[in-house]
């Protein structure tokens, strides 16, 4: 047994070395990324926090109505927001919504093109799959550590950790949608002389739209599930009171903040369940 334990494979040292090297040699990349993320977060936050809360609630409710054309879901959303205001969690809620929205933009912006590329190149997907599995199964806390090293404390490492955890979902669903476009439709486009680009825009993407929308829904829900973990690296939002309640063993505060997260989750889910067609 001794030879086995004596020759420990240096996973620890290798990881350390890789991240150390990245920190020195790829600093420009991570700094640039941090600036871009920071900017995105600031912009969304400004939009949600500058107007009076009731105005924002009215606008969001109107947007939901425009999406659904019925009174039930918008009414639910409006009541939900009023409950949040009543409990005094407006600021935290806007911060968490900002994190979710920013994660959405980044995840869909990366996930859809990568999913399309993977669907067109089966060998790329064969390489990608274990990476996606790793991103979804590696405990979140593990990559919070390098996230802090690269980006410090705040919203940005929270967003990065969220993106790493969430982006496999839109990649997988976009891949599924594009790859399961009926052969007959792709052939019909071919038979009428479609270029690869025309095939993508006029056949594959419309055919994959339901799956891509499911990917968007997943992205939002999974991002929201990350708000507590993001709070551990200093991201503002609804996770902060939860973490505080945990530290003080304050059951009341914990349930109060937890209930707000549940309300936000249900509101987002119902608001985004739109029947296409």
């Amino acid at each position: 047994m001794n030879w086995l334990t004596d020759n420990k494979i240096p996973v620890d040292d290798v990881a350390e070395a890789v991240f150390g090297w990245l920190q020195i040699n790829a600093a420009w990349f991570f700094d640039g990324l941090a600036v871009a993320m920071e900017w995105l977060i600031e912009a969304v936050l400004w939009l949600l926090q500058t107007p009076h809360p009731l105005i924002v609630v009215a606008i969001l409710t109107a947007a939901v109505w425009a999406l659904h054309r019925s009174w039930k879901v918008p009414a639910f959303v409006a009541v939900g927001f009023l409950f949040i205001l009543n409990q005094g969690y407006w600021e935290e809620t806007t911060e968490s919504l900002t994190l979710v929205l920013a994660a959405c933009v980044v995840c869909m912006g990366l996930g859809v093109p990568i999913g399309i590329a993977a669907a067109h190149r089966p060998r790329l997907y064969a390489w990608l799959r274990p990476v996606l599995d790793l991103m979804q199964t590696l405990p979140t806390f593990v990559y919070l550590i390098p996230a802090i090293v690269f980006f410090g404390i705040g919203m940005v490492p929270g967003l990065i950790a969220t993106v790493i955890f969430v982006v496999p979902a839109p990649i997988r669903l976009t891949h599924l949608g594009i790859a399961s476009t009926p052969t007959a439709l792709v052939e019909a486009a071919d038979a009428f002389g479609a270029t690869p680009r025309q095939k993508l825009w006029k056949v594959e993407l419309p055919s994959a739209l339901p799956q891509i929308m499911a990917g968007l829904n997943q992205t939002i829900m999974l991002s929201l599930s990350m708000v507590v973990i993001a709070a551990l690296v200093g991201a503002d939002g609804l996770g902060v009171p939860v973490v505080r309640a945990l530290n003080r063993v304050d059951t009341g505060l914990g349930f109060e903040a937890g209930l707000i997260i549940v309300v936000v989750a249900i509101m987002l889910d119902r608001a985004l369940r739109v029947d296409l067609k």
Partner: protein
Amino acid sequence: MSERNTVVAFDNVSIVFGDDPQKALPLADDGQQRGEIQETTGQVLGVHDASIDVKAGEILVLMGLSGSGKSTLLRAVNGLNPVARGSVRVSDGESMIDVTTCDAKTLRDLRQRRVAMVFQQFGLLPWRSVAENVGLGLELAGEPAAKRREIVTRQLELVGLDAWADHRVAELSGGMQQRVGLARAFATDAPILLMDEPFSALDPLIRSRLQDELLELQRDLQRTIIFVSHDLDEAFKIGNRIAIMEGGRIVQLGTPREIFSNPASEYVADFVANMNPLGVLTARDVMKPAAGGSASEETIDVETPIRDILPLLRNGPLTVTEDGAPLGSVSAESVVARLSA
């Protein structure tokens, strides 16, 4: 018909599915069947050594049981199936282009302007309206929206669907959906139409009506049509010539009459035995050669279909003429003699 130009030429076309098609070809040349070739090489022989010249304006029917290679051969015309050996040449209006070797751009141009296709399962885009589906080919070819709308409206009138232009295709019945498929193929004004069992998924009544409509449209439009069918009655009804395929090989190529009166093999004879002869035979097949003098005052042309002769026979025998000259006579007895032969 003989002086018409060839617009599609299959020259010794072999199509093999698998990772190493060349391995299968020598075995196929030795006359081995698909099953044996698959056992020894793992390659599936789709079509072997098919040669046909398709003339402008004719309807050629590729006919056989499922798995006979008829669709495979059809799909080689617009490059949907790769050809392992031989060539498929398609007219671009001026010269013949070999679609097996031409570049992607040339192939796309042919598909956009010269060769249109109708599919068995329609191949319509379900999220689009009827009009948007009909305009697909024009859209892909980059025609401006105004011109597209005009052509689409005309095509929809032609197939009797103008009232349905803004409906989703899913709201239409199977027969109507295939009319949309036909309109889409006609819209690009392509002189060559490939039809892959277009009516097989439809009810018999609708099928028969669409066959009639296709023939009517063809009288005005004079396209070159390659039509795949597994139904001999359909093949005889619409084909000017029929190529009968078995196990990837063409076993007989000829006009419906030639095939009916002179089947080249057991396989063809089996097919023919199951069909209604009244749709095929003409006066030439059922007449008795003239033994001097004319049998009656009434005359009919030698190419008159037997269907039209039968009611006339009630008044006694008829004289058969070719270009006005008497050739023989038809009587109830001579018809019965031929049909029971």
